[in-house]
């Protein structure tokens, strides 16, 4: 068994919260720059330039790129040979989120109850997804997720007869209806398969990929390309002002499913697609 200390987890999670919000990934900045080459709208180009400048200010001064520093979504891959000492794993994650959101001057955006709506004051609880994997390391990914883009997400329990055309129609239609609200250019996570609760997780997990990476399965590589082209024909453009660059990427996660089902979920992410990973 490998021992991982409670306090090391707290400190690591705190740093991941701050870094993910302030250090926009090179993949995103490259995508903005590539977008500038294809964007036809002058306003659209100006938006992309502002987003590049924004990312630079954020990185240089370690201030969040967006004021909505989101829900702290935490993905854990816990090696079966890992033992947490000095406290409980989930307590350490939440203590890390509270510390990171305080020390990093990040906005606290969580209410303790969906109807009574009192702010918890420290951005906890984190929304934690855990996988047990072979090995003796603990992999932690923090992916803060803003509310504006999350509100534009949707699940549809499609049936097999809908086929790829049905999925394509649903995804493109979801983006069309979202218009400017999720802060385009967006990144689109698509979950296909599994069941009702699994498919939403797949769509969220898809958003962890870096822009520029390709799906390991050539079949889905093609599907991702096709969806991205369709979405970029909508004309929504940067910030919805009209233009070519509506989405920077489409990522698909597929999973086995029931013979009667073809669940599909669309999780939309804004251009501030934040995620940072550490391994203990």
């Amino acid at each position, binding site marked *: 068994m490998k021992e991982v200390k409670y306090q090391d987890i707290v400190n690591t999670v705190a740093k991941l919260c701050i870094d993910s919000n302030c250090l926009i990934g090179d993949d995103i900045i490259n995508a903005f720059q590539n977008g500038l080459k294809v964007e036809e709208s002058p306003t659209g180009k100006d938006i992309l330039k502002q987003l590049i400048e924004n990312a630079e200010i954020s990185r240089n001064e370690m201030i969040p790129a967006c004021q909505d520093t989101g829900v702290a979504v935490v993905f854990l891959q816990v090696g079966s040979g890992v033992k947490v000492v000095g406290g409980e794993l989930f307590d350490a994650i939440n203590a890390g989120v509270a510390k990171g959101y305080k020390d990093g001057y990040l906005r606290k955006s969580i209410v303790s109850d969906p109807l009574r709506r009192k702010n918890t004051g420290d951005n906890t609880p984190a929304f934690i997804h855990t996988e047990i994997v072979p090995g003796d390391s603990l992999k932690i990914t923090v992916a803060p997720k803003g509310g504006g883009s999350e509100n534009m997400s949707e699940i549809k329990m499609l049936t097999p007869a809908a086929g790829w055309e049905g999925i394509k129609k649903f995804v493109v239609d979801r983006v069309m209806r979202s218009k400017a609200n999720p802060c385009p250019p967006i990144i689109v996570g698509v979950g296909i398969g599994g069941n009702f609760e699994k498919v939403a997780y797949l769509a969220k997990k898809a958003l962890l990929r870096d822009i520029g990476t390709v799906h390991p399965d050539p079949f889905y590589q093609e599907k991702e390309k096709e969806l991205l082209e369709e979405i970029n024909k909508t*004309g929504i453009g940067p910030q919805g002002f*009209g233009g070519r660059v509506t989405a920077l990427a489409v990522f698909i996660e597929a999973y086995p499913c029931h013979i009667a089902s073809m669940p599909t979920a669309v999780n939309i992410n804004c251009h501030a697609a934040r995620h940072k990973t550490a391994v203990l």
Partner: protein
Amino acid sequence: MKKITTPLTEAAVKDLKAGDSVLITGIIYTGRDAAHKRLTDVLKANQPLPVDLKGQIIYYVGPAPAKPGYPIGPAGPTTSERMDPYTPALLAYGMKGMIGKGNRTPNVIEALKKYTGVYFAAVGGAAALIAKRIKKCETVAYDDLGPEAVMKLTVEDFPVVVVNDCYGNDLYEEGMKKYRKV
């Protein structure tokens, strides 16, 4: 690029067209869901507003905390449609402009025509850049609402784009149509 200063006159609003890039200098006020509810309740009761919004612009924003030495934290726009139920009453009172992001409902677009108002969008997610254009920030009403309190912001060259002008034009609709390839 057009430059305007606040408060806005009727003539200044009439000069703005959907699609214009604009830099705003002067005072703007913040307000989100909870503040809007209170402001419109006050108007309904024929009481005076805690800040005079005649000719003014409201910015829909909930900033992140300010780091020491900064006047304000990152401060990008939030989604405007949540404020739509309250907006016509404020426009009727004399508020002239709003800054946010995302589409407005038809009743807001109608009210902009009727009362000569304008809706601007700031760049969602460009919060660090936008904060650089905010020079001063003070809470002026509803302190108890925390980040949702009404704040008075002194801004210089605050970058926005006109989405809905007072003539019924809508950049979101027209821009999308222009670049659509389906």
